[in-house]
């Protein structure tokens, strides 16, 4: 169980978070069909660092992009995404 530093709540147990998908699999709403399917059905899946979308589902419900090493689980960055919020 990792510990993820939520940009809003601070360090929290991984169990409060749900993984959604990698950032390379985000299908833009305006993507052309062929491009959309290529995005949906291929992954970099590196044995190293990748950017992933997680949600603090059982906490503040906010979405974030986590930069994580797939072997060591080292999290090098967490970035908030979503509508602009008050500090």
């Amino acid at each position, binding site marked *: 169980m990792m510990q993820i530093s939520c940009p809003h709540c601070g360090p929290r147990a991984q169990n409060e978070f749900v*993984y959604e998908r990698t950032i390379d699999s985000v299908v833009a709403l305006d993507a052309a069909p062929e491009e959309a399917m290529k995005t949906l059905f291929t992954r970099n899946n590196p044995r190293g660092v990748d950017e992933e979308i997680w949600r603090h589902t059982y906490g503040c419900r906010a979405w974030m992009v986590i930069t994580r090493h797939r072997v060591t689980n080292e999290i090098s960055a967490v970035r908030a995404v979503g509508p602009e919020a008050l500090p």
Partner: protein
Amino acid sequence: MSRYSALSLLRGAFNGQKHWQPAWRDPEPKAHYDIIVIGGGGHGLATAYYLAKVHGLKNIAVLEKGWIGGGNTGRNTTIVRSNYRQAELHNLFEFGLKMWEHLSDELNYNVMFSPRGSLTLGHSDADMTMLAQRGDAMRCDGIDAELMTQDQVAKFEPLLDMSRSARFPIEGALIQRRGGTARHDAVAWGYARAADSLGVDIIQKCEVTGFVRDGDAVVGVETTRGRIGAGRIGICVAGNSGHVAGLAGLKLPIESQTLQAMVTEGVKPMLRSVIQTQSLHCYISQSDKGGIVFGGDPDNWPSYAQRGNPIIMEQAVAQGLALVPALSRLRMVRTWSGVTDMSFDGSPIIGETPLPNLYLNGGWCYGGFKATPASGWTYAHTLATGKPHALNAPFSLDRFERGATIDENGSGPMPNSR
């Protein structure tokens, strides 16, 4: 190859077991092979064996970065069954199950395939309908499946909690009696020994670090032990498919995830079959040594770490204890995890890649072990002939972009929702 038998063991008893030869050679890689299989797991070794045995090829190598059988072949819960709902899947796995039934003799290596029954419990009428549907689909295609009533289940596995007040009461089950377990390491070793005796070079500690290209075509591999040329190359490294395919510049419909399993201290026989359930996500069986082997959900996020989240394991144990309360005071003695290739419809990929001469076998999610013979057989056919066999034709890599996915759970392209 000196044959194994009770007699040869007896002979060993009198000569201090001194007459045994190494089960496989330790050859130096040659400059060129007709076919190279990347990955010395069960699937890769089986592929090499059938290439030599069925297709009569002589110049074959299996390249293994570590020790053979050291990946998912040695890190699973050893379950063998073919009870899938979708025809493409149950036909492939049934082909394999039939091979399991004679595999020890075929390889002259006891893989301890033990068809003690694959029992899938149902916890509601809805579950029982789904189980019946699955069983009916199998039966119509000539595969054994029976529905069991509550009473039959209680008699078959007496330690299951059959009380009506259980959180997930047991309403019945679907049983595939020909399903069961096998000794995972023995499968790798048995195929390795048999393939080696047919001249296959099994080269351990030889990691592929790149592909040699001639235009689009792949004509060899770079390895930690030098460049090796090849006519055709088959990737067979489930768990690391994304990484190895990436060396050839390919991106796959695969995400790697960690799957954990565990075993308890040994006790005298208490469970006879492999217990699974329609509503929960744990599977339980008792090994020949007496340990209760437990598996659960994969950790639902990408990972190449062969380490998991304890909470996932605790959930699987909770489910198992809710089904078999008598397991409460046993002790978990060992855990392990493997890196699984989670494909984007839950089904494997066996076939061509967009690059000439390069083939892919992967995407087995958490169900590859039981497919070992069928996977090896169909992949060998594909590698030898350049064309898929009818059994693996539906499992092509291009099915995703075409929309011809084989989705057993109907849960779509996100592996974490599977």
